[in-house]
Protein backbone atom coordinates (compact mmCIF):
# COMPACT_ATOMS: atom_id res chain seq x y z
CA UNK A 1 0.00 0.00 0.00
CA UNK A 2 1.14 3.52 -0.78
CA UNK A 3 0.11 6.35 1.48
CA UNK A 4 -0.51 10.04 0.86
CA UNK A 5 -0.89 12.21 3.92
CA UNK A 6 -2.80 15.31 2.86
CA UNK A 7 -2.72 18.30 5.13
CA UNK A 8 -4.37 21.64 5.28
CA UNK A 9 -7.93 21.11 4.13
CA UNK A 10 -9.30 22.89 7.16
CA UNK A 11 -6.49 25.38 7.58
CA UNK A 12 -6.39 26.71 4.05
CA UNK A 13 -9.95 26.27 2.98
CA UNK A 14 -11.49 27.73 6.14
CA UNK A 15 -13.86 29.26 6.93
CA UNK A 16 -15.90 27.50 4.26
CA UNK A 17 -16.46 23.95 5.52
CA UNK A 18 -15.36 21.31 3.07
CA UNK A 19 -17.87 18.55 2.61
CA UNK A 20 -16.99 14.89 2.24
CA UNK A 21 -18.37 14.89 -1.28
CA UNK A 22 -16.10 17.80 -2.23
CA UNK A 23 -13.07 16.08 -0.80
CA UNK A 24 -13.81 12.87 -2.64
CA UNK A 25 -14.42 14.78 -5.89
CA UNK A 26 -11.27 16.80 -5.45
CA UNK A 27 -9.20 13.75 -4.86
CA UNK A 28 -10.64 11.73 -7.72
CA UNK A 29 -10.03 14.72 -10.02
CA UNK A 30 -6.45 14.95 -8.85
CA UNK A 31 -5.74 11.31 -9.33
CA UNK A 32 -7.75 8.31 -10.42
CA UNK A 33 -5.57 5.97 -8.48
CA UNK A 34 -5.84 7.55 -5.04
CA UNK A 35 -8.56 6.40 -2.71
CA UNK A 36 -9.55 8.56 0.25
CA UNK A 37 -9.46 6.41 3.33
CA UNK A 38 -12.69 6.53 5.24
CA UNK A 39 -11.86 5.52 8.79
CA UNK A 40 -15.09 3.79 9.71
CA UNK A 41 -14.10 3.19 13.31
CA UNK A 42 -13.13 6.81 13.97
CA UNK A 43 -14.45 8.09 17.29
CA UNK A 44 -15.73 11.04 15.24
CA UNK A 45 -18.04 9.28 12.79
CA UNK A 46 -19.21 12.61 11.40
CA UNK A 47 -15.69 13.12 10.04
CA UNK A 48 -14.71 9.72 8.67
CA UNK A 49 -11.97 11.14 6.43
CA UNK A 50 -10.21 13.06 9.16
CA UNK A 51 -7.36 10.92 10.51
CA UNK A 52 -6.13 13.44 13.08
CA UNK A 53 -7.88 11.58 15.91
CA UNK A 54 -5.02 9.09 15.72
CA UNK A 55 -2.68 11.76 17.05
CA UNK A 56 -4.58 12.25 20.28
CA UNK A 57 -4.94 10.29 23.45
CA UNK A 58 -6.91 7.05 23.34
CA UNK A 59 -8.07 4.42 25.79
CA UNK A 60 -6.12 1.59 24.26
CA UNK A 61 -2.74 0.28 25.33
CA UNK A 62 -1.92 0.26 21.64
CA UNK A 63 -0.71 3.39 19.90
CA UNK A 64 -3.56 5.02 17.97
CA UNK A 65 -1.16 5.78 15.13
CA UNK A 66 -0.19 2.11 14.87
CA UNK A 67 -3.84 1.10 14.97
CA UNK A 68 -4.72 3.47 12.16
CA UNK A 69 -1.82 2.32 10.00
CA UNK A 70 -2.62 -1.33 10.61
CA UNK A 71 -6.25 -0.61 9.73
CA UNK A 72 -5.24 1.02 6.47
CA UNK A 73 -3.01 -1.91 5.55
CA UNK A 74 -5.81 -4.35 6.44
CA UNK A 75 -8.36 -2.40 4.40
CA UNK A 76 -6.45 -2.04 1.15
CA UNK A 77 -4.56 -4.07 -1.39
CA UNK A 78 -0.81 -4.02 -1.86
CA UNK A 79 -1.02 -1.82 -4.96
CA UNK A 80 -3.57 0.69 -3.66
CA UNK A 81 -2.65 4.33 -3.13
CA UNK A 82 -4.52 5.60 -0.11
CA UNK A 83 -4.91 9.14 1.17
CA UNK A 84 -5.53 10.17 4.74
CA UNK A 85 -6.31 13.70 5.83
CA UNK A 86 -4.80 15.76 8.57
CA UNK A 87 -6.84 18.95 8.77
CA UNK A 88 -3.99 21.33 9.53
CA UNK A 89 -0.34 21.43 8.67
CA UNK A 90 0.40 22.43 12.22
CA UNK A 91 -0.41 18.85 13.29
CA UNK A 92 2.77 17.72 11.60
CA UNK A 93 4.95 19.36 14.16
CA UNK A 94 2.67 20.10 17.07
CA UNK A 95 4.06 18.85 20.31
CA UNK A 96 1.14 16.62 21.18
CA UNK A 97 3.16 14.00 23.04
CA UNK A 98 3.02 16.26 26.09
CA UNK A 99 -0.72 15.69 26.06
CA UNK A 100 -0.38 11.95 25.65
CA UNK A 101 -0.67 11.90 21.89
CA UNK A 102 1.66 11.87 18.94
CA UNK A 103 2.53 14.38 16.25
CA UNK A 104 1.79 14.12 12.57
CA UNK A 105 5.53 13.91 12.02
CA UNK A 106 5.66 10.75 14.08
CA UNK A 107 2.72 9.43 12.13
CA UNK A 108 4.64 9.95 8.89
CA UNK A 109 7.79 8.41 10.36
CA UNK A 110 5.91 5.34 11.58
CA UNK A 111 4.19 4.98 8.22
CA UNK A 112 7.57 5.19 6.47
CA UNK A 113 8.93 2.51 8.80
CA UNK A 114 5.98 0.23 8.14
CA UNK A 115 5.46 0.79 4.42
CA UNK A 116 8.88 1.97 3.30
CA UNK A 117 9.75 5.68 2.88
CA UNK A 118 9.31 5.49 -0.88
CA UNK A 119 5.66 4.61 -0.35
CA UNK A 120 4.78 7.59 1.82
CA UNK A 121 4.43 11.16 0.65
CA UNK A 122 3.12 14.32 2.17
CA UNK A 123 0.96 16.66 0.15
CA UNK A 124 -0.98 19.84 0.87
CA UNK A 125 -4.09 21.35 -0.55
CA UNK A 126 -3.46 24.31 -2.80
CA UNK A 127 -5.34 27.32 -4.08
CA UNK A 128 -6.54 28.25 -7.53
CA UNK A 129 -4.97 30.80 -9.87
CA UNK A 130 -7.63 33.32 -8.92
CA UNK A 131 -6.73 32.94 -5.29
CA UNK A 132 -3.05 33.31 -6.09
CA UNK A 133 -3.78 36.62 -7.78
CA UNK A 134 -5.64 37.80 -4.74
CA UNK A 135 -2.80 36.80 -2.48
CA UNK A 136 -0.35 38.61 -4.72
CA UNK A 137 -2.42 41.79 -4.74
CA UNK A 138 -3.01 41.68 -1.05
CA UNK A 139 0.64 41.15 -0.45
CA UNK A 140 1.58 44.13 -2.57
CA UNK A 141 -0.93 46.35 -0.83
CA UNK A 142 -0.14 45.02 2.59
CA UNK A 143 3.46 45.94 2.03
CA UNK A 144 2.46 49.59 1.92
CA UNK A 145 0.12 49.60 4.86
CA UNK A 146 0.52 51.49 8.02
CA UNK A 147 2.10 49.60 10.85
CA UNK A 148 1.23 50.91 14.28
CA UNK A 149 -0.68 50.21 17.43
CA UNK A 150 -4.01 48.54 16.93
CA UNK A 151 -7.01 50.34 18.35
CA UNK A 152 -7.91 47.34 20.48
CA UNK A 153 -7.52 43.64 20.86
CA UNK A 154 -4.03 43.22 19.50
CA UNK A 155 -5.16 41.54 16.33
CA UNK A 156 -4.22 42.03 12.74
CA UNK A 157 -7.04 43.37 10.65
CA UNK A 158 -7.40 43.36 6.92
CA UNK A 159 -10.36 44.95 5.25
CA UNK A 160 -11.05 45.07 1.61
CA UNK A 161 -13.87 45.52 -0.81
CA UNK A 162 -14.64 43.11 -3.57
CA UNK A 163 -16.82 43.69 -6.55
CA UNK A 164 -19.38 41.10 -7.59
CA UNK A 165 -20.40 40.38 -11.17
CA UNK A 166 -23.36 42.75 -10.75
CA UNK A 167 -21.07 45.55 -9.65
CA UNK A 168 -22.03 45.72 -5.97
CA UNK A 169 -19.34 46.10 -3.38
CA UNK A 170 -18.98 43.68 -0.48
CA UNK A 171 -16.89 44.51 2.54
CA UNK A 172 -14.78 41.77 4.01
CA UNK A 173 -13.02 41.80 7.28
CA UNK A 174 -11.03 39.09 8.99
CA UNK A 175 -9.37 39.30 12.34
CA UNK A 176 -6.81 36.77 13.34
CA UNK A 177 -3.40 36.45 14.84
CA UNK A 178 -2.05 34.52 11.90
CA UNK A 179 -1.26 36.45 8.74
CA UNK A 180 -1.25 33.36 6.56
CA UNK A 181 -4.66 32.48 7.78
CA UNK A 182 -5.95 36.01 7.13
CA UNK A 183 -4.86 36.00 3.54
CA UNK A 184 -5.97 32.52 2.76
CA UNK A 185 -9.30 32.91 4.52
CA UNK A 186 -9.98 35.97 2.45
CA UNK A 187 -9.07 34.11 -0.70
CA UNK A 188 -11.41 31.34 0.18
CA UNK A 189 -14.27 33.73 0.85
CA UNK A 190 -13.72 35.46 -2.45
CA UNK A 191 -13.73 32.22 -4.31
CA UNK A 192 -16.66 30.85 -2.38
CA UNK A 193 -18.76 33.91 -3.13
CA UNK A 194 -17.55 34.05 -6.73
CA UNK A 195 -16.23 37.60 -6.31
CA UNK A 196 -13.26 39.19 -7.98
CA UNK A 197 -11.06 41.35 -5.88
CA UNK A 198 -10.60 44.57 -7.84
CA UNK A 199 -7.61 45.87 -5.95
CA UNK A 200 -9.45 49.15 -5.58
CA UNK A 201 -10.65 48.51 -2.06
CA UNK A 202 -9.15 49.63 1.16
CA UNK A 203 -6.64 47.41 2.88
CA UNK A 204 -5.47 48.08 6.35
CA UNK A 205 -2.93 45.92 7.97
CA UNK A 206 -2.45 46.97 11.52
CA UNK A 207 0.08 45.27 13.70
CA UNK A 208 0.59 46.04 17.33
CA UNK A 209 3.41 44.92 19.55
CA UNK A 210 1.69 41.69 20.52
CA UNK A 211 1.02 40.55 17.01
CA UNK A 212 4.53 41.57 15.98
CA UNK A 213 5.73 39.03 18.46
CA UNK A 214 3.43 36.45 16.98
CA UNK A 215 4.74 37.18 13.54
CA UNK A 216 8.30 36.95 14.71
CA UNK A 217 7.68 33.42 15.89
CA UNK A 218 7.16 32.40 12.28
CA UNK A 219 9.31 34.81 10.26
CA UNK A 220 9.04 32.42 7.33
CA UNK A 221 5.36 33.19 6.89
CA UNK A 222 5.81 36.01 4.42
CA UNK A 223 3.66 36.59 1.38
CA UNK A 224 6.57 35.56 -0.82
CA UNK A 225 6.85 32.38 1.14
CA UNK A 226 3.17 31.66 0.72
CA UNK A 227 3.40 32.31 -2.99
CA UNK A 228 6.36 30.02 -3.31
CA UNK A 229 4.42 27.14 -1.89
CA UNK A 230 1.35 27.67 -4.05
CA UNK A 231 1.06 25.99 -7.38
CA UNK A 232 -0.79 27.58 -10.29
CA UNK A 233 -3.93 26.44 -12.01
CA UNK A 234 -7.00 24.40 -11.27
CA UNK A 235 -9.85 24.69 -8.87
CA UNK A 236 -9.62 25.66 -5.28
CA UNK A 237 -9.43 21.98 -4.40
CA UNK A 238 -6.21 21.17 -6.07
CA UNK A 239 -3.64 18.68 -5.02
CA UNK A 240 -0.02 19.55 -5.52
CA UNK A 241 1.47 17.13 -7.96
CA UNK A 242 4.67 16.84 -6.00
CA UNK A 243 5.24 16.46 -2.29
CA UNK A 244 6.36 19.52 -0.35
CA UNK A 245 8.14 17.36 2.16
CA UNK A 246 9.40 13.82 2.17
CA UNK A 247 8.78 11.31 4.86
CA UNK A 248 12.47 11.30 5.67
CA UNK A 249 12.66 15.02 6.37
CA UNK A 250 10.03 14.68 9.08
CA UNK A 251 11.56 11.71 10.80
CA UNK A 252 12.38 12.79 14.35
Amino acid at each position, binding site marked *: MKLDVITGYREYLAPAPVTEAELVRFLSDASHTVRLASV*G*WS*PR*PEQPFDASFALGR*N*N*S*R*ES*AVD*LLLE*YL*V*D*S*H*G*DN*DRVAVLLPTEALLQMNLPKKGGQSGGEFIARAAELLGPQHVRLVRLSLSQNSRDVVRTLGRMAGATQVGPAPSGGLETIELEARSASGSLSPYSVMTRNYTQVVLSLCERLVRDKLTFTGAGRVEFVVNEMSKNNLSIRPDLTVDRILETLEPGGEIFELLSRPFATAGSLTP
Partner: protein
Amino acid sequence: MTTLSILLPHYNDPKGFELSLRSIEAQTWKGSREIVVCDDGSRPKELADLERICSSTRETVKLLRNEKNRGRPYTRNVLLDAADGKYTAWLDSGDEWYPEKIQQQLNGLYRARHQGFDKVVWCTTNYDWQWAGAKKRIRKQNVDGDQLGNMLTGSLGAYLWTILGTTQSFRDVGHFDLQLTRLQDLDFFIRFLSKDGMLILPPTDEPLVVYHKSDIGKNGEEISRCFNYVLDKHSAHLFTRSRRFRRNRRYHVNMHAARFTDNNDESLQTAMYLGRAALNSPVAFVRHMVRNKGRL
Protein backbone atom coordinates in the same frame (compact mmCIF):
# COMPACT_ATOMS: atom_id res chain seq x y z
CA MET B 1 0.22 -12.71 4.40
CA THR B 2 -3.38 -12.71 3.26
CA THR B 3 -5.54 -10.40 5.29
CA LEU B 4 -8.78 -12.37 5.18
CA SER B 5 -9.66 -16.03 4.72
CA ILE B 6 -13.26 -16.66 3.77
CA LEU B 7 -14.24 -20.21 4.65
CA LEU B 8 -17.00 -21.84 2.68
CA PRO B 9 -18.11 -25.47 3.01
CA HIS B 10 -19.94 -26.98 0.04
CA TYR B 11 -22.11 -30.03 -0.45
CA ASN B 12 -24.20 -30.64 -3.58
CA ASP B 13 -25.28 -27.01 -3.94
CA PRO B 14 -23.32 -25.25 -6.72
CA LYS B 15 -26.14 -22.73 -7.33
CA GLY B 16 -26.14 -21.72 -3.70
CA PHE B 17 -22.36 -21.55 -3.76
CA GLU B 18 -22.42 -19.25 -6.78
CA LEU B 19 -24.88 -16.93 -5.03
CA SER B 20 -22.56 -16.74 -2.03
CA LEU B 21 -19.51 -16.23 -4.23
CA ARG B 22 -21.10 -13.28 -6.04
CA SER B 23 -21.81 -11.63 -2.70
CA ILE B 24 -18.13 -11.99 -1.79
CA GLU B 25 -17.08 -10.46 -5.09
CA ALA B 26 -19.35 -7.47 -4.39
CA GLN B 27 -17.69 -6.57 -1.10
CA THR B 28 -16.63 -2.92 -0.84
CA TRP B 29 -13.69 -4.00 1.29
CA LYS B 30 -10.69 -4.31 -1.02
CA GLY B 31 -7.99 -5.89 1.13
CA SER B 32 -6.23 -9.09 0.17
CA ARG B 33 -8.35 -12.19 0.60
CA GLU B 34 -8.62 -15.86 -0.22
CA ILE B 35 -11.71 -17.99 -0.43
CA VAL B 36 -11.15 -21.45 0.95
CA VAL B 37 -13.78 -23.92 -0.23
CA CYS B 38 -14.04 -27.48 0.99
CA ASP B 39 -16.30 -29.81 -0.95
CA ASP B 40 -17.71 -32.45 1.34
CA GLY B 41 -17.98 -35.34 -1.11
CA SER B 42 -20.52 -33.92 -3.56
CA ARG B 43 -21.87 -35.94 -6.46
CA PRO B 44 -19.65 -35.77 -9.59
CA LYS B 45 -21.93 -33.39 -11.51
CA GLU B 46 -22.23 -30.95 -8.61
CA LEU B 47 -18.50 -31.15 -8.02
CA ALA B 48 -17.82 -30.39 -11.69
CA ASP B 49 -20.17 -27.38 -11.49
CA LEU B 50 -18.40 -26.20 -8.37
CA GLU B 51 -15.01 -26.42 -10.08
CA ARG B 52 -16.33 -24.51 -13.08
CA ILE B 53 -17.69 -21.71 -10.87
CA CYS B 54 -14.46 -21.51 -8.88
CA SER B 55 -12.42 -21.14 -12.05
CA SER B 56 -14.70 -18.39 -13.37
CA THR B 57 -14.09 -15.90 -10.57
CA ARG B 58 -11.29 -13.36 -10.24
CA GLU B 59 -11.11 -14.10 -6.54
CA THR B 60 -8.32 -16.29 -5.21
CA VAL B 61 -9.99 -19.62 -4.51
CA LYS B 62 -8.40 -22.57 -2.77
CA LEU B 63 -10.56 -25.65 -3.43
CA LEU B 64 -10.20 -28.60 -1.06
CA ARG B 65 -12.07 -31.92 -1.19
CA ASN B 66 -13.15 -34.57 1.26
CA GLU B 67 -12.94 -37.93 -0.47
CA LYS B 68 -16.34 -38.84 0.95
CA ASN B 69 -19.08 -37.01 2.78
CA ARG B 70 -17.76 -36.33 6.29
CA GLY B 71 -20.32 -33.85 7.58
CA ARG B 72 -20.34 -30.15 8.36
CA PRO B 73 -18.18 -30.07 11.55
CA TYR B 74 -15.39 -32.13 9.95
CA THR B 75 -15.46 -29.90 6.87
CA ARG B 76 -15.33 -26.76 8.96
CA ASN B 77 -12.31 -28.14 10.79
CA VAL B 78 -10.58 -28.76 7.45
CA LEU B 79 -11.36 -25.18 6.44
CA LEU B 80 -10.13 -23.67 9.68
CA ASP B 81 -6.88 -25.63 9.45
CA ALA B 82 -6.36 -24.35 5.90
CA ALA B 83 -6.99 -20.65 6.63
CA ASP B 84 -3.93 -18.48 5.99
CA GLY B 85 -5.44 -15.06 6.66
CA LYS B 86 -4.99 -12.76 9.61
CA TYR B 87 -8.80 -12.67 9.89
CA THR B 88 -11.38 -15.34 9.17
CA ALA B 89 -14.98 -15.01 8.06
CA TRP B 90 -17.46 -17.78 7.29
CA LEU B 91 -20.20 -18.19 4.78
CA ASP B 92 -22.46 -21.13 3.91
CA SER B 93 -23.46 -21.95 0.36
CA GLY B 94 -26.77 -20.29 -0.36
CA ASP B 95 -26.40 -17.36 2.04
CA GLU B 96 -25.27 -13.89 1.09
CA TRP B 97 -23.25 -11.08 2.52
CA TYR B 98 -24.29 -7.52 1.79
CA PRO B 99 -21.52 -5.42 0.19
CA GLU B 100 -20.51 -3.54 3.36
CA LYS B 101 -20.23 -6.66 5.52
CA ILE B 102 -16.50 -7.11 5.87
CA GLN B 103 -15.63 -3.40 5.90
CA GLN B 104 -18.13 -2.62 8.65
CA GLN B 105 -17.06 -5.56 10.76
CA LEU B 106 -13.40 -4.66 10.37
CA ASN B 107 -14.38 -1.17 11.53
CA GLY B 108 -16.02 -2.79 14.55
CA LEU B 109 -12.92 -4.77 15.47
CA TYR B 110 -10.72 -1.68 15.23
CA ARG B 111 -13.14 0.48 17.17
CA ALA B 112 -13.01 -2.09 19.98
CA ARG B 113 -9.22 -2.04 19.98
CA HIS B 114 -9.18 1.76 19.98
CA GLN B 115 -11.57 1.80 22.91
CA GLY B 116 -9.21 -0.49 24.80
CA PHE B 117 -11.24 -3.72 25.01
CA ASP B 118 -9.07 -6.22 26.80
CA LYS B 119 -11.05 -9.27 25.63
CA VAL B 120 -10.83 -11.31 22.46
CA VAL B 121 -13.72 -10.11 20.33
CA TRP B 122 -15.66 -11.38 17.36
CA CYS B 123 -17.70 -8.90 15.43
CA THR B 124 -21.20 -10.15 14.69
CA THR B 125 -23.95 -8.27 12.85
CA ASN B 126 -27.70 -7.87 12.56
CA TYR B 127 -28.96 -9.98 9.70
CA ASP B 128 -31.89 -10.52 7.41
CA TRP B 129 -33.76 -13.77 7.85
CA GLN B 130 -35.61 -14.90 4.77
CA TRP B 131 -37.77 -17.99 4.60
CA ALA B 132 -38.05 -19.41 1.11
CA GLY B 133 -40.76 -17.47 -0.72
CA ALA B 134 -41.29 -14.97 2.11
CA LYS B 135 -40.18 -11.40 2.82
CA LYS B 136 -36.95 -10.66 4.62
CA ARG B 137 -37.16 -9.89 8.32
CA ILE B 138 -34.36 -8.21 10.19
CA ARG B 139 -32.98 -10.04 13.22
CA LYS B 140 -31.20 -7.83 15.72
CA GLN B 141 -28.35 -9.33 17.68
CA ASN B 142 -28.54 -8.62 21.41
CA VAL B 143 -24.95 -8.31 22.64
CA ASP B 144 -25.87 -6.44 25.82
CA GLY B 145 -25.48 -8.02 29.24
CA ASP B 146 -25.21 -11.79 29.63
CA GLN B 147 -24.14 -12.91 26.16
CA LEU B 148 -24.18 -16.61 26.99
CA GLY B 149 -27.72 -16.27 28.34
CA ASN B 150 -28.74 -14.30 25.26
CA MET B 151 -27.32 -17.03 23.07
CA LEU B 152 -29.17 -19.77 24.90
CA THR B 153 -32.45 -17.86 24.71
CA GLY B 154 -31.91 -17.08 21.02
CA SER B 155 -31.74 -13.28 21.19
CA LEU B 156 -28.11 -13.55 20.12
CA GLY B 157 -27.85 -15.84 17.12
CA ALA B 158 -24.91 -18.26 17.09
CA TYR B 159 -24.27 -18.21 13.36
CA LEU B 160 -20.77 -18.41 11.97
CA TRP B 161 -21.71 -16.48 8.82
CA THR B 162 -22.39 -13.40 10.95
CA ILE B 163 -18.86 -13.35 12.39
CA LEU B 164 -15.53 -11.73 11.63
CA GLY B 165 -12.61 -12.42 13.96
CA THR B 166 -8.92 -13.11 13.90
CA THR B 167 -8.03 -16.57 12.63
CA GLN B 168 -6.07 -17.18 15.80
CA SER B 169 -9.14 -16.47 17.93
CA PHE B 170 -11.05 -19.22 16.10
CA ARG B 171 -8.17 -21.66 16.45
CA ASP B 172 -7.96 -20.87 20.15
CA VAL B 173 -11.52 -22.16 20.57
CA GLY B 174 -10.43 -25.47 19.08
CA HIS B 175 -12.08 -27.74 16.55
CA PHE B 176 -15.77 -28.14 15.87
CA ASP B 177 -17.34 -31.01 17.78
CA LEU B 178 -17.71 -33.95 15.38
CA GLN B 179 -20.67 -35.28 17.36
CA LEU B 180 -22.70 -32.25 16.33
CA THR B 181 -23.98 -32.82 12.82
CA ARG B 182 -26.19 -29.77 13.51
CA LEU B 183 -25.68 -26.78 15.81
CA GLN B 184 -21.93 -27.22 15.94
CA ASP B 185 -21.66 -23.45 15.70
CA LEU B 186 -23.78 -22.97 18.85
CA ASP B 187 -21.34 -25.19 20.73
CA PHE B 188 -18.41 -23.31 19.19
CA PHE B 189 -19.81 -19.94 20.27
CA ILE B 190 -20.48 -21.15 23.81
CA ARG B 191 -16.89 -22.35 24.07
CA PHE B 192 -15.67 -18.99 22.79
CA LEU B 193 -17.72 -17.08 25.38
CA SER B 194 -16.61 -19.52 28.10
CA LYS B 195 -13.02 -18.59 27.30
CA ASP B 196 -13.91 -14.97 28.11
CA GLY B 197 -14.48 -14.04 24.50
CA MET B 198 -16.93 -11.30 23.63
CA LEU B 199 -19.22 -10.47 20.75
CA ILE B 200 -19.52 -6.93 19.49
CA LEU B 201 -21.52 -5.17 16.81
CA PRO B 202 -20.12 -3.07 13.97
CA PRO B 203 -20.74 0.70 13.84
CA THR B 204 -23.91 0.18 11.79
CA ASP B 205 -27.29 -1.28 12.83
CA GLU B 206 -28.06 -2.27 9.26
CA PRO B 207 -28.18 -6.01 8.51
CA LEU B 208 -25.02 -7.12 6.73
CA VAL B 209 -25.99 -10.68 5.88
CA VAL B 210 -29.07 -12.41 4.53
CA TYR B 211 -29.81 -15.95 5.66
CA HIS B 212 -31.97 -17.88 3.21
CA LYS B 213 -33.76 -20.20 5.54
CA SER B 214 -35.45 -23.48 4.79
CA ASP B 215 -36.22 -26.45 7.03
CA ILE B 216 -37.01 -28.72 4.11
CA GLY B 217 -35.05 -31.97 4.24
CA LYS B 218 -33.67 -31.25 7.70
CA ASN B 219 -34.21 -33.84 10.34
CA GLY B 220 -36.09 -32.63 13.43
CA GLU B 221 -34.87 -35.56 15.50
CA GLU B 222 -31.29 -34.72 14.62
CA ILE B 223 -31.87 -31.10 15.62
CA SER B 224 -33.34 -32.20 18.93
CA ARG B 225 -30.50 -34.62 19.61
CA CYS B 226 -27.82 -32.04 18.85
CA PHE B 227 -29.55 -29.30 20.84
CA ASN B 228 -29.86 -31.55 23.89
CA TYR B 229 -26.25 -32.64 23.44
CA VAL B 230 -25.13 -28.99 23.54
CA LEU B 231 -27.21 -28.30 26.64
CA ASP B 232 -25.84 -31.38 28.39
CA LYS B 233 -22.27 -30.59 27.36
CA HIS B 234 -22.54 -27.10 28.80
CA SER B 235 -24.71 -28.03 31.75
CA ALA B 236 -22.25 -26.34 34.10
CA HIS B 237 -23.31 -23.02 32.59
CA LEU B 238 -26.98 -23.96 32.76
CA PHE B 239 -26.79 -24.87 36.44
CA THR B 240 -25.66 -21.36 37.31
CA ARG B 241 -29.06 -20.20 36.05
CA SER B 242 -32.56 -20.56 37.41
CA ARG B 243 -34.64 -23.71 37.14
CA ARG B 244 -37.13 -21.83 35.02
CA PHE B 245 -34.38 -20.80 32.62
CA ARG B 246 -33.27 -24.42 32.25
CA ARG B 247 -36.84 -25.64 31.76
CA ASN B 248 -37.44 -23.00 29.12
CA ARG B 249 -34.34 -24.12 27.22
CA ARG B 250 -35.68 -27.67 26.99
CA TYR B 251 -39.01 -26.20 25.90
CA HIS B 252 -37.15 -24.23 23.26
CA VAL B 253 -35.40 -27.39 21.98
CA ASN B 254 -38.69 -29.23 21.56
CA MET B 255 -40.44 -26.32 19.87
CA HIS B 256 -37.49 -25.98 17.55
CA ALA B 257 -37.60 -29.66 16.62
CA ALA B 258 -41.38 -29.46 16.16
CA ARG B 259 -40.95 -26.65 13.67
CA PHE B 260 -38.55 -28.75 11.61
CA THR B 261 -40.76 -31.84 11.62
CA ASP B 262 -43.84 -29.75 10.84
CA ASN B 263 -42.13 -28.15 7.85
CA ASN B 264 -41.28 -31.64 6.63
CA ASP B 265 -44.87 -32.91 7.08
CA GLU B 266 -44.00 -35.34 9.85
CA SER B 267 -47.21 -35.03 11.86
CA LEU B 268 -46.58 -37.71 14.46
CA GLN B 269 -43.14 -36.42 15.27
CA THR B 270 -44.47 -32.87 15.45
CA ALA B 271 -47.17 -33.90 17.92
CA MET B 272 -44.57 -35.65 20.05
CA TYR B 273 -42.28 -32.62 20.24
CA LEU B 274 -45.19 -30.28 20.91
CA GLY B 275 -46.33 -32.55 23.73
CA ARG B 276 -42.86 -32.49 25.26
CA ALA B 277 -42.69 -28.72 24.91
CA ALA B 278 -46.07 -28.35 26.64
CA LEU B 279 -44.78 -30.47 29.52
CA ASN B 280 -41.56 -28.45 29.76
CA SER B 281 -43.34 -25.14 30.04
CA PRO B 282 -47.15 -25.15 29.79
CA VAL B 283 -47.43 -21.38 30.19
CA ALA B 284 -44.91 -20.60 27.47
CA PHE B 285 -46.52 -23.20 25.21
CA VAL B 286 -50.03 -21.74 25.55
CA ARG B 287 -48.71 -18.21 25.16
CA HIS B 288 -46.87 -19.17 21.98
CA MET B 289 -49.89 -20.90 20.48
CA VAL B 290 -52.23 -18.00 21.27
CA ARG B 291 -49.81 -15.40 19.96
CA ASN B 292 -49.12 -17.34 16.76
CA LYS B 293 -52.70 -18.57 16.29
CA GLY B 294 -51.66 -22.21 16.46
CA ARG B 295 -48.80 -21.85 14.02
CA LEU B 296 -45.28 -22.94 14.82
